[in-house]
Every structure is written in C-alpha cells, then in structure tokens.
C-alpha cells in the first residue's frame, strides 16, 4: 500500500465548473514526487485538497488516503491533529508565511507542543536543534528574532523547520524556492533534500521549473488544465515523454539543443490545447 | 443577494426623500394642529398612527420630521465636503511639513465629536438649527479630509498621472484633470455615510433639546417629549425612533452598496 493514494479527486469552487477533474496518483513512503505544470493548472489546489485546507466554499470529491486514512470529509477535529504531524506543507511565500508579531522560534516550538506533550524547555531544545538542521547559523539568535529581521532564505528555512520538526510522513512543498534568489534557492533545496532524508519523509514537490524538479524528485506528475496527463519515473519521462504537452515543456527547457540563430521552441510547437472550457482557470 | 444592500439603501433613502418633499406641500393634517381632546389617543380613522401628547396627528409629524433630517444632512455634509475635500487634496498633493501640518490639524479636529462640538456651540451661541448644522459639518471635515487625502495620494502615484506628467502636463493641471474625477466616487461613499451620522447627531441633539426650536418638528424632539409619556403611550416613542433608524440605515446601506460597486476586489473578499 502506498503512503498517499489519491483516487478520482475532483475539486470545484462554488458553482463554477470543477478546477480539478478525476486526479489519480500515489506517493510511496519516502518517495520524491514532482508535480509540474503551468500556473493555473491546479497544482496548488491539489496540494490544498490533500492538506484539507481548501476554502469552505470549495467541494472536493473522490478519495484521498494517507496511510490508509480517508482524508476527504474528515472532520477538522480529527484532521487538524494530523497536519504538522503526519503531513505538513511548505508554502511559496516565505515573506508572509510567518506571523510578524511572534518570535519565529516560538512559532516553531509551538508546533512541537501542539502535537506532543513536552515542556517549554524540551520544545525549545528541539527547535534549536531543528533550526541547526536547516542550516541556520546561530539558532539561538534566530529563535528570538521576528520574521522581518530575517532574510527570505532564512525565513524559508524556518518554515521548513516548522514543517519537518515533527517528522511527518509527507511534506508538500508548493514552489518553496520560487520567491528566492537563485543562489539561495540552491541552499534551500539542499537543506530540503538533506532533511527529507534525515526524517525519511515522502515529498510532493510542486514547481513549474524543470531544473529545480530534477534536483529534488525521482518521479514526475505532469498537470494540465486540472488533470494529470503524464506520470512516471523522472528519467523515463525526461528521456521519453509520451504526452505532447510534456514534450513541449521539455523542449523549452533544453536550450543546449537549440541551434544558434534559430527560433526558441515554445510549448505550442508541440501541443495545441483544445478550446478551453471557461472557468477552469484558477490561480496557483 | 448581489447588491442587496445597495438597493435596500436606495429604497430607504428614496422613502425619506419622498417623505421630505411631499410633506413640504402636503401632510394628512397640519403637524402642529392640536385636535382637542385627542391627546394620547390611539389610531382612529384618518389618523393612522394616532395622536401625540398634545393631540397632534402623529403620522403627519413623523412625515414632517423627515424635512429637518434631510436639511441637516445636506447642509452639514456640504459644509464638511466643501472644506474637507480641498483640505485633503491639498494635503495629498503637498509634500513635507505643510502636508503633515494639515493632517495634524485635521486630527485635532477629529478629537471633537460632532455632538460635543454642537453642545459647545449651543452653549456659546444658543441652540438653533444653524448652529447644529454648522457644528456637525465642522466636526465632519476631518473625515472628508482623510478620505480625500488617501484617494489623492493613490491617484497621484498611479501610472496615468506619471504618464501625463512625463508628457509634459503641468502638475496642477494634471491634478485638476485627474484627481477630482477619480476621487469623486470615494467621496460619494463618504458623503452617504456622513449623512447617516449627521442624522444621528441631529437626532441626539434635538433629543437633548439643543437642536431646532420647539415648533420645528424633529424626530429627536418627538422622542424627548414622548419619553415623559412612556407610561401612557410607548408607541409615541416607537415611530420617530423607527424613522431615525430607517433613514440612517438607508444612508449606511447606500454607502456600503456604493463601496461594493467601486471595489469589486473587496466584494470578492467579503
């Protein structure tokens, strides 16, 4: 049995036509699965659906099972204790993901105390240890800092620490490095890989950047207009893409294969989308 | 559900407006005419709401009360807008300490709630409709100044102003051409909300006996007089109170509805 099994997942916002239609995928324990697609294809909605954090006017149907537990329709009183403990999420925007009025160390330590019985001191020690794990020098000082006193990379590491500190089985990363500088991006990705290994967590990694994807993942899901059009091992998808959209996506990334002076390839060269049904577009 | 508040507001404000205009030329009975022996009588015949403590027709008086509420609203909001808007625009277009000074003065004025200023005026110069309107108007100036300044700042920093100035349009001209038309809707919202607050302030003032002179029919004064007869006839206090609440609700909803119209983003969020 896989860790996460998503079967026939559809999500609709209000009375609009569904944003996600019949999504199927599985994630094995410890696997790194990349979810790629252009913005608006429904990647973030998929992530929020798994986390059970869709807005109240959205309806999700189908089945999402984590370690055999059905998540769709699970009451919040039972779902909330799983978040941050069995599964957790890293968001795109580190600048705003932390409460500006609370010391960041306390925000991490509270995640520990929320899910297990531990004293203030124990939580603090665990947090300092975790901050060190995510490569923050001088964790004591970071612990007592407010979010605005940290750089973007530092903040994202704190968010990583929050997501990983309870050693969850699944970590969902929604474009965790998109908002960061390229150099900082590399460091954060390294920290992420290292810690996923240390914790032994599986990862659903959402991105639109093939280069980033290839650094973290060993499996790929390709998403287009609210449906998954291709899935498989990273290697086989990269070397032998089946769906024309995937082929287009890959071609645009392989600039080394473009003859000098010729026109750059676009996805549209490979895949011409059918007339879109209105309403399938959703941010993220 | 969409635009429900706007339409409710329009209807309520419409009713008050029509009542005010109609009562100028016609009310079922003269609001100050005393029907001997009818004091505190309940509804009968053409007197659909009955009589007040002196035997005057209650419905006619409620109808006539809308006049003063509209007059006070129009005059005090006009005073506030005529002074507050240029004040705010100036504060928004000037830079440095002059702008700072203008807003600080507005802040100090803000510390005088309308009612308190009106009471002060009434104490110094005697109570009259005019002193009430002036006081409420002056106390409302800062509200308009703040809104006008905020709107001006956002307009002045927008791309089309930059484009206009880049193409050589003088500063002042671009301001006149672009600022006023662009902040007009925001001011409309503020005017509607201020109108409601002016009605409330005037009602309180009349209730305290510091508003218009006794022969002018006002809802606030009707409540003041009704309170004495609470034991005999509570309905006397019901109708003027409902009238005030309805009028204020109308202007508030109208303001809210206009704001929603202006700011679709906000409507999404709500």
């Amino acid at each position, binding site marked *: 049995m896989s860790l996460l099994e998503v079967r026939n997942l559809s999500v609709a916002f209000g009375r609009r036509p569904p944003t996600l239609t019949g999504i199927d995928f599985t994630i094995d324990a410890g696997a790194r699965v990349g979810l790629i697609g252009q913005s608006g294809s429904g990647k973030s909605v998929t992530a929020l659906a798994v*986390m059970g*954090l869709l807005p109240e006017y959205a309806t999700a149907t189908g089945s999402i099972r984590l370690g055999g537990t059905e998540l769709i329709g699970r009451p919040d*009183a039972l779902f*909330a*204790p*799983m978040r*941050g403990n069995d599964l*957790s*999420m890293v*968001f795109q925007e580190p600048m705003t*993901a*932390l*409460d*500006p*009025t*609370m010391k960041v160390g306390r925000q991490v330590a509270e995640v520990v105390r*929320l899910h297990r019985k531990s004293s203030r001191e124990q939580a603090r020690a665990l947090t300092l240890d975790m901050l060190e794990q995510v490569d*923050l*020098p*001088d964790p*004591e*000082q*970071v612990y*007592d*800092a*407010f979010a605005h*006193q*940290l750089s973007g990379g530092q903040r994202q590491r704190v*968010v990583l620490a*929050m*997501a990983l500190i309870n050693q969850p089985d699944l970590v969902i990363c929604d474009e965790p490095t998109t908002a960061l500088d390229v150099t900082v991006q590399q460091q954060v990705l390294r920290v992420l890989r290292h810690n996923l290994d240390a914790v032994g967590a599986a990862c659903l990694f959402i991105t639109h950047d093939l280069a980033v994807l290839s650094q973290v993942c060993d499996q790929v899901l390709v998403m287009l207009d609210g449906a998954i059009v291709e899935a498989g091992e990273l290697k086989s998808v990269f070397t032998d893409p089946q769906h024309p959209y995937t082929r287009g996506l890959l071609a645009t990334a392989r600039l080394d294969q473009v003859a000098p002076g010729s026109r750059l390839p676009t996805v549209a060269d490979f895949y011409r989308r059918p007339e879109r049904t209105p309403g399938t577009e959703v941010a993220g | 559900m969409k635009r429900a*508040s706007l339409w409710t507001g329009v209807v309520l404000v419409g009713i008050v407006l029509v009542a005010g205009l109609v009562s100028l030329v016609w009310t079922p009975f003269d609001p100050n005419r005393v029907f001997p022996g009818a004091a505190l009588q309940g509804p009968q015949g053409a007197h659909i709401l009955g009589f007040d403590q002196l035997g005057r027709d209650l419905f006619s008086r409620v109808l006539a009360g809308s006049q003063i509420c509209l007059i006070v609203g129009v005059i005090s909001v006009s005073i506030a807008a005529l002074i507050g808007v240029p004040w705010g625009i100036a504060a928004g277009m000037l830079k440095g300490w002059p702008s700072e000074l203008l807003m*600080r003065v507005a802040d*100090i004025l803000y*510390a*005088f*709630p309308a*009612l*308190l200023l009106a*009471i*002060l*005026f009434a*104490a*110094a*110069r005697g109570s009259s409709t005019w002193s009430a309107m002036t006081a409420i108007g002056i106390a409302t100036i800062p509200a308009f100044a703040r809104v006008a300044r905020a709107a001006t700042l956002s307009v002045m920093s927008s791309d089309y102003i930059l484009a206009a100035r880049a193409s050589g349009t003088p500063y002042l001209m671009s301001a006149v051409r672009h600022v006023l038309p662009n902040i007009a809707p925001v001011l409309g919202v503020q005017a509607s909300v201020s109108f409601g607050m002016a009605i409330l302030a005037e009602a309180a003032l009349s*209730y*305290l006996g510091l508003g218009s002179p006794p022969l002018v029919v006002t809802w606030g004064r009707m*409540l003041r007089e*009704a309170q004495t007869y*609470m034991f005999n006839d*509570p309905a006397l*206090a019901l109708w003027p*109170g409902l009238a*005030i*609440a309805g*009028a*204020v*609700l109308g202007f*508030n909803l109208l303001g809210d509805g206009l704001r929603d119209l202006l700011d679709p983003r906000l409507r999404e*969020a709500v």
Partner: protein
Amino acid sequence: MAGSGTATGSAPAVRGGTASRRGGVLVRILIRLGVFLASLLVASLIIFWVCNALPGNVAQAMLGQSADPAAVRALEEQLGLNRPFFVRYGEWIGGMLTGDMGTSYLTHQQVGVQIAEKFGVTAWLVGFAMVLALLIAVPVGTFAALRRRHWAGFVTSGLSQLGLAIPAFWAGIMAVWLFGVWLRWFPANGYVPLTEDPAQWLAHLVLPVCSLALVQSAVLVRYVRSATIEVLSEDYYRTARAVGWREIPALLRHGLRNASLSVVTVLGLQLTTLLVGAIVIEQVFALPGLGSLLLQAVAQRDLVMVQGTVLVLVLAVLLVNFLVDLSYLLLDPRLRERR
C-alpha cells in the same frame, strides 16, 4: 540575547540590534507625547475661544439676552472679562495646571469639584459598556467572518448593520419602557452611589450600560468581522492551519495579535463615541454624570462650567488616542524599529 560564539562570520545573522531599537522607541514615544500636548493646547484654545471670544458672552448669559448693555459692560468690568483674550486664556490654563478649574459665576460652585464628583458615574457607565460591547462583538464578529458565505453569517452582518442605525438613546428609551415600565426588572432611571448600596448601584446601571453597549457592539462587530476576514486570508494563518492548529485556536494565536492593531484603533474611536453616547444616555436615565453636568450647565448658559467639562471630555478623547498610538509601538515589532 545570546549572540556570541557560533560561527556567524562578519555579517550579523539577524538584522537590527536591541540597543538601537530601544532608542527608536523612546524617540517615538516623545514625539507622540509632543503631538498629544500640542493637540491639547489647540483644543483648549478652540474651546476657550468658542466660549469667550464673542464680546459679552459670559456676562450676557448671566444677565439674560435682554439685559441693559451698560449693565453687561459693568459686569464684564467687575469679572475682568474685558481683558485681552490671551490673558484670560492664560489665567484659565494656569489655574488648570494648579488644579483650579475655575468657579462658576452662576452657582459659585468649583468646576473641578463638580467634575470630580460626577466623573465616576460616567466612567463606570463607559467602562462597563465598553467591556460588554467587546464581550458581545468579538465572538459574534469572529463567527460572522468564519461563516461569511453561510446564511448565518449574512444574518449576523445584517443585524449589525441594523444596530448601527439605531440611536443609543432610542434603544435606552425603549429599554426603559420594556424592562423598567412593563416588566419592572430594573429601575427605569436614577442612580445610587456604589458606597451606599452596591446591589442598587448595579441595578441602576444595567439598563444604561446595556443600551449603550448593544448599539456600540454593532459597530464593533463589523470591525471584528473585517479584521478577522483579513487574518483568515493571511499566509501565516494558512501556515498555522497547515501545522495543525484548528480554526479558532489559529485565529486566537495569530489573529488576535495581528488584528489587535486594528482593534485597538477602533477601541480608541469607540471610547470616544461611547463617551459622547454617555452624555445622551445619562439624560435618558437621569444619571448624575459628566453629561448631565454639561447639559445642565448649557441650559443655564454657565460657560465656565461648560468649558471645563468639555475640556475634560476632550482631554479624555485625546488621552485615549495617545494611548492607542503608544500601544501600536508595543504591539507591532516592525513599527518599533521603523524610524
């Protein structure tokens, strides 16, 4: 702050030192204090001017509108009212600073003593109303925000809109009729000092406090609702939910801290409206507070008493605004550092 030892290198790991932060706060507090004092000065000038600038105002008021102009002038002479405006203003303010708020020409009562006597009633009224309004508005507003797409949310918002339009004094009058006259649960008006009979004191405050607070809470509900909606859309709220907080605790943990900024602003404004509302409510329930003192003075055209009472009320408003400004500095760590 333990910032020593570890290999941080030359660049500090955390921006902004503690020392500079403290210095910044002190300067900002002093600036706010200056603004407060300046506002008070201007406000007192306005009050004194309105009450005294028109020639013969006080004396005219004492002798009546139809008094002989010569008599008015003689009285002015006698009271020293014909001296220059600023001399008299200086005298008033100077007396104020030494605790002497002046003496009424009409009743020969000490203004300060009168105000001190009535202040308690108004303070209790406003204080209780504020607390009650908060107790009603915070849960209701939060509920309206959480269920904003649900009919219950619409109904709550609609009710608060309705409450916004109801004059507090009308609510008071209707409460007198319902609970005082008809049901006879509470005394319809009057006041009993706390020291005399605590139970009666409380009983006499119930209706005024409730009518003031109910209407006020309508305004607050709207603020709490929109502040809560704002927090609900914040990323840090989503983060809190993603690490396992449930809706209400996440709101309390993070929302209260962040929304508290706007709530504090609103509380400042609300206290002002409550103070003004109290003036009218005291009249409805015949409570002997500052409002009654002021209105009685206005009726008698006792301008010395009027200017003293209004100044105290405005002082209260300005003081509240000042405290609101200060609390910003304490609540928002970002503001503490910005200069």
